[in-house]
């Protein structure tokens, strides 16, 4: 493996100093990052299960009951913890997993649920809240970074774009999106297409424009722009120029090689799984390695599963979940293994979740419908005390029996696990400062390492 274990490369001095003098907010960031630079950088990987995964068939199996269906449980490395039979590989990493079986929320609609889980806020109010990727990415961002602080792999944003956005934090903290998914995209592309999809779009100069010409025309633009900017000083123009500057740094960046998965061995790529999610998880590791603080990878399709909201298993739930898990199990377990081998698992927190769970009762189409009352999420890796289950549901799965967990509690736990204060405030542009997570949040103390 020829990877050079560098952190983020530094910008060329000129660009860096120009960026820092841009405006106050940039300067503040720079100071904050310098103060924290002694510690190893923390990161978070969100494995987003689009459509709402079935808890009964993943992390809260109830074999032998009416609601349990045909799914069997298997033992894990941790005595007493059993998960669905679909996870033979992940079972070996149970010592790093904290399984939360007592999620209890109130939004059972895709759009509203996604907004709630991804921002930690109830949808519908006047404030546009940032997604967890943006607000965590912003806090962990480093001003010398060539790569953006949040990257989103294969998101399916159509149902609620706001749930994926930077909200009031602004486009500066918008995720860099690769392999955007939509209902007409092929959810199961071939290997070649996957490599192409996982690259940053519009990063290369258009065909026929040489590198030299690219530099010259950009220089001419800057010169042509200078009069206008001198006449109109202020944040708006600065932000525009900063974005162009950062885009151009990215175009020239070596760090952007992270998106070139061909640098990896075939054996490792096979182990992750030659599908969009598997290769997306490999990309996540490569980005974290290069200091990107937040990466999310969406699993929304698998061979034979509707592309888009694959976990929305209203019909043929058991077959669909099996197919999705056949993608999820190798990808997730290899990610844990790979991060661990590189010494990154202790500083990288993984969170597995969807917008809600699914009905314990099985419907007439052998499916399960939307269910927010009692369902599961998983935290793993850095900052998390693994080998435990939090909370429990009743035997029929219909109620949380013990230790209900609300969304702000879950996100506050994640935020603390990556070393941040959930009560940190951001300016919201509407005058009121707003905390990272709702002040009512109580982090799940027992899972914090």
């Amino acid at each position, binding site marked *: 493996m020829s990877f050079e274990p560098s952190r983020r490369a530094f910008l060329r001095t000129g660009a860096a100093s120009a960026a820092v003098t841009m405006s106050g907010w940039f300067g503040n960031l720079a100071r904050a990052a310098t103060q924290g630079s002694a510690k190893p950088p923390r990161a978070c990987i969100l494995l987003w299960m689009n459509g709402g995964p079935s808890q009964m068939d993943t992390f809260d199996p109830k074999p032998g009951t009416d609601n349990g269906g045909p799914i069997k449980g298997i033992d894990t490395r941790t005595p007493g913890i059993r998960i669905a039979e679909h996870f033979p590989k992940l079972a070996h990493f149970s010592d790093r997993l904290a399984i939360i079986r007592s999620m209890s929320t109130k939004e*059972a*609609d*895709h*759009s*509203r649920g996604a907004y709630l889980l991804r921002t930690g806020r109830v949808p*519908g109010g*006047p404030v*546009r809240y940032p997604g967890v990727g943006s607000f965590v990415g912003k806090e962990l961002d480093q001003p010398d970074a060539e790569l953006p602080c949040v990257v989103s792999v294969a998101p399916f944003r*159509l*149902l*609620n*774009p*706001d749930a994926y*956005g930077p909200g*009031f934090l*602004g*486009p*500066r903290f*918008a995720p*860099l*999106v690769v392999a*955007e998914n*939509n*209902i*007409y*995209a092929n959810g199961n592309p071939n290997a070649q297409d996957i490599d192409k999809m996982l690259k*940053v*779009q*519009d*990063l*290369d*100069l*258009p065909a026929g*424009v040489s590198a030299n010409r690219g530099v010259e*025309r950009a220089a*001419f*633009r800057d010169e*042509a*722009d200078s*009069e*206008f*900017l001198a*006449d*109109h*000083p*202020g944040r*708006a*123009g600065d*932000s*525009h*120029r900063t*974005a*162009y500057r*950062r885009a151009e740094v*990215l*175009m020239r960046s070596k760090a952007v090689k992270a998106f070139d998965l061909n640098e990896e061995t075939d054996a490792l790529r096979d182990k992750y799984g030659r599908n969009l999610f598997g290769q997306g998880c490999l990309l996540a590791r490569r980005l974290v390695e290069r200091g990107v603080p937040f990466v999310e990878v969406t699993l929304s399709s698998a061979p034979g599963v509707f592309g888009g909201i694959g976990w929305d298993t209203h019909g043929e739930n058991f077959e669909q979940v099996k197919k999705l898990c056949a993608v999820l199990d190798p990808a997730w377990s290899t990610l844990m293994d790979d991060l661990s081998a590189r010494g990154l698992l202790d500083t990288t927190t993984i969170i597995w979740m969807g917008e809600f769970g699914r009905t314990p009762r099985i419907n007439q189409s052998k499916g399960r*419908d939307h269910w927010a009352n009692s369902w599961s999420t998983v935290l793993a890796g850095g900052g998390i005390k693994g080998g435990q289950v939090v909370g429990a549901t009743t035997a029929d799965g219909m109620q949380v029996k013990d230790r209900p967990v609300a969304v702000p509690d879950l996100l506050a736990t994640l935020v603390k696990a990556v070393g941040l204060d959930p009560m940190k405030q951001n300016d919201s*542009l*509407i*005058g009121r400062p707003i905390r990272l997570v709702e002040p009512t949040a109580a982090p799940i103390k027992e899972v914090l390492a």
Partner: protein
Amino acid sequence: MLRMALAWAAVLVWMPRMEAAAPARSGPNPDAVALAARIDKALDAAWKARKITPAEPATDGEFLRRVYLDLAGRIPTVAEARTFLADTRPDRRQRLIADLLSRASYARHMTTVWRRLLMPEADSNIQFAFLTVGFDSWLRKQFAENIGYDKMAREILTVAIDQRAQQQIFGNDITKPTPIGYYFAKEVKPENLAAGSARVFLGLRLECAQCHDHPFASWTRDQFWGLAAFYAGLSGRDNGGGFVTPEREVGDRREISIPGTERVVQASFPDGGEPVWKFKAGSRQTLADWMTDKKNPYFARAAVNRVWAHLFGIGLVEPVDEMAGGQDTKVYHAELLDELAKAFADHNFDLRFIFEAIAGSKAYQLTSRGAGPAPLYSRQLLRGLTGEQLFDSLAVATGQPNVLGDDPFAIYFGNQDARGQFLTKYGRQSGKPSDHETSIIQALLLMNGEFVDGATHPSKSELLGALLEAPFLAEKSRIEAIYLATLSRMPTERELEKADSFIGRAAAATDAQQTRTEAIADVFWALINSTEFAFNH
């Protein structure tokens, strides 16, 4: 249900653009000109009292670009720019404003703007996107025919909710203009309808009080539910997956129980007024009577304030949807707002009239050049373009008006048309334009993306091709044409020189002709990627 709605929409065909012709107007409206003068008098007095020196007047080029972006949603074409810049009549600006307000592009742009206000759900939830088909064509009709704002609001507030409503949404007449989609987008919930109508029509943000009396705002929970009670007769059915269809309406229901409580609240107006129930008038009619009354303390002010914010980037009261009772509410010029609201109501809530008056003021026509704060509209601000404004301006600048298609179903076909693809990547912004920020993805899209590349490619771009092939054009005229096409103004002497020398360097190259062609294309590319192009200024 979600998949059904998607599949349903997918079988529908592309709807042709609705370009209803508006009656041509002969020229400026004298009443609007008079009101513009009163705006300037009020601001002059305020500036004097606070010792504020206003900025210089905008040049014709600055004004031209601004007024096109604000009233037509795009920059002017080269021909339109040349015509205006050659006009020497003293009232040329007033004439242009009146002309723009009578064009189809005004109705098109206003439809985008007001739909985003009235039905933001359609942008954020794909299940609601197809509702825009009937709603947008209804809105466009209102603006094209210049229907009074009170009548528009009344139709939204009182449209019949019955079995036919459902047929209209799912039936063959889906393209028929109707505001009915509004109720589907609000999920037929009284609380959503109350919050939505309060925010847009009254400029009030009551929903914070939905769950409890809010510590920051003066609205109480009872006031919120008192407004919601006017919609209490509506009921809908969730067909699964969160898509609610209206079922029937008990037209005269006047009370509502607050969910999760024992408390029942009677219908009441937010200003504390008691409704006067007329014989046989439904609750929603009673609400509409109060809301659109000339004496309503909020209705005209909220509308006028939004128009002001549309033209200045900042309202006379901010935030525009929290004009009273908010912790952070700032009132910049209460008397001017009152005067404008009164004039608006006296002119039968004529939106074109109020646009014409405000855009005709000297304040609107100040330059955006200058540093530091610009209190009390003493200088125009840089305002970011919406994705739609940017794409439409790119299309105009690069001579491709044919891509200005407006396919309401584009989203279902994976946004395959150029505009849809561009908007999907660029994002449909809904934040305050004066707080605009640019993202890396947006910058990459504009620098290297397919649309801009094609539009600035010497052999693919029609405008550039025509420019390059015109043998009679001197280099100087070519550069002027590029400036007019992109920045809607003539280049300065210095700019002309710079561009000329940039292109002139090509003469030394081995393939001089090819290099020169590329250099001209690069000048074009550079201006499209300039900060000046990216902003309304």
